[in-house]
């Protein structure tokens, strides 16, 4: 069997006495889309924070392309090819849209202080090329963003903030993109538009793998092939959405919660 692109084994983290993520095994192939669902506070975002190196695992391993990246600092994991968005989008609000996306290319560009100071031509060329590519990426994700590329990111409405975050994540040429509740804070129409945009970017880059945390069932049904259900930090089910949704344990943990939510 081929080595999976991303593989977690026994991944766990404890905060004091609380086990937030417990012995989670995940496996993701190149080009695949995996959706993680589960009730609020189940540990989904914590799982993302573990994979992206923001939290340090208590035990378990993470492998990317067969390489052990467990415990690496966040910036090295980003450079290794795992990009992400945040549940409450974390843009660089006082910078322009282009700036935001160019920052996303940080680990694909090289200029250091010495280059910037003593080889201005080279640094400038790289910088302008990055800006050029940033423009293309913005246009790919949404032409509306491209039009506004020189305005400040802090002024964007919620749906566009999410799109810009996705553009920024794409900018690092990642192998995997992790989207943390891309539809949170958006109405149905915006969510539909977002699904379209995500589909478009998926078609554009077939090799790219996605892990998506989602609450919106329409998005879950529309996009991913495979679903993992997390509850109380543990993986309780895995499979295609149409099968998983029928499992009693899942309905109890998640859909019951959903009904109560509505």
């Amino acid at each position, binding site marked *: 069997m081929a080595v999976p692109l991303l593989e977690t084994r026994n991944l766990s983290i404890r905060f004091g006495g609380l086990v937030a993520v417990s012995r989670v095994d995940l496996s993701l192939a190149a080009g695949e889309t995996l959706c993680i669902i589960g009730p609020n506070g189940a540990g989904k*975002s914590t799982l993302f*924070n573990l994979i992206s190196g*923001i939290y340090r695992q208590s035990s378990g391993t993470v492998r990317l392309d067969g390489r052990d990246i467990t415990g690496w600092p966040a910036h090295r994991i980003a450079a290794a090819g795992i990009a992400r968005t*945040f549940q409450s989008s974390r843009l660089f609000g006082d910078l322009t849209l282009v700036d935001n996306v160019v920052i996303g290319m940080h680990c694909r560009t090289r200029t250091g202080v010495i280059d910037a100071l003593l080889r201005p031509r080279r640094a400038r060329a790289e910088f302008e090329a990055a800006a050029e590519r940033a423009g293309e990426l913005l246009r790919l994700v949404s032409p509306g963003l491209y039009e506004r590329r020189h305005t400040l990111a802090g002024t964007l409405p919620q749906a566009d903030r999410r799109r810009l975050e996705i553009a920024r994540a794409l900018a690092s040429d990642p192998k995997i993109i992790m989207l943390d509740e891309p539809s949170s804070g958006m109405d149905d129409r915006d969510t539909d538009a977002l699904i379209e945009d995500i589909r478009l970017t998926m078609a554009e880059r077939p090799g790219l793998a996605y892990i998506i945390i989602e609450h919106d069932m329409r998005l879950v049904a529309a996009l991913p092939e495979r679903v993992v259900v997390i509850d109380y930090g543990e993986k309780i089910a895995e499979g295609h959405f149409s099968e998983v949704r029928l499992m009693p344990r899942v309905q109890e943990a998640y859909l019951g919660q959903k009904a109560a939510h509505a």
Partner: protein
Amino acid sequence: MDVFVMQNLLNWLVLGSIYALVALGFSLLFGVLNVIHFSHGDVSIVAPFVVLAVVQALLASVFPAATLGALALACVLAIVAVGLIGVLADWLVIRRFRNAPAMMALVATVALGTVVREVIRMVYPQGSNPKPFPRLIESRVQLGDLPVPVFSLFVIAVSVLMMTVLFAVMRYTPLGMRIRAVAEDRATARLMGIRPGHIFAATFFIASAVGAIGGLFFASYAGVVRFDFGIQLGLIGFSAAVIGGLGSMQGAILGSLLIAGIDTLVQATMAEGASYRLVFAFLLVIVVLVLKPSGILGRPIMEKV
């Protein structure tokens, strides 16, 4: 025990008490308002000047003989006055930086400190020169082989008393509860009918008045006071509050004892201790913060993702 050791232990406690009175203000203000009031040291050092002025006025007019009574009255007046100056400083300047980045408030209060120093220098006659400041209590008691100044015991006792009162006020009185509520969550406190503006004023009064006691002791301990003593007093009080963990009153006391400890130790053991005391005190600050980035008793900053 050796007289020398006992002497230095006493010095340590006196110095630690004085620093703690100032550090508590920093910690209280940071805990409640999330603001660094960098002019706190300068405001505190206004107190000895008020005392000198009041004593002179009293001796010249009302009761020429009753020196001790005049001094006591002057101290009380000074503490209240400095408390009000703190409230005024907040009302005029600091409250305008409630929602600004921390650096803005820091720089603004540094400038405010200069204003306070310059006003002292100009208002007080020949304000640029150092002024002799009396020991609040002159007598000594014999403790074994060691003659102990009553003043030292008085400083320690008053500091411990003030700390106890402060703890009790914060923990058991309605005012303390309101202060803690505002510190915890300003918006919710407002919903509960607490007016944060009043709480801020109260906090500034308490912090500045306690600082004033520290300022009085500082001047009295040194036997002299000058308009710019507040810089050093403020820096040391601030450092003590920070290495203890900002917002934690126990931390402020612990930090003060640490800094006073290294201060006393260096002066007692090194030949040129007096000139190197600040070097070691601030090296200690750096070392503590490298090892404990949010202070000894501070809550570690855990960012929500």
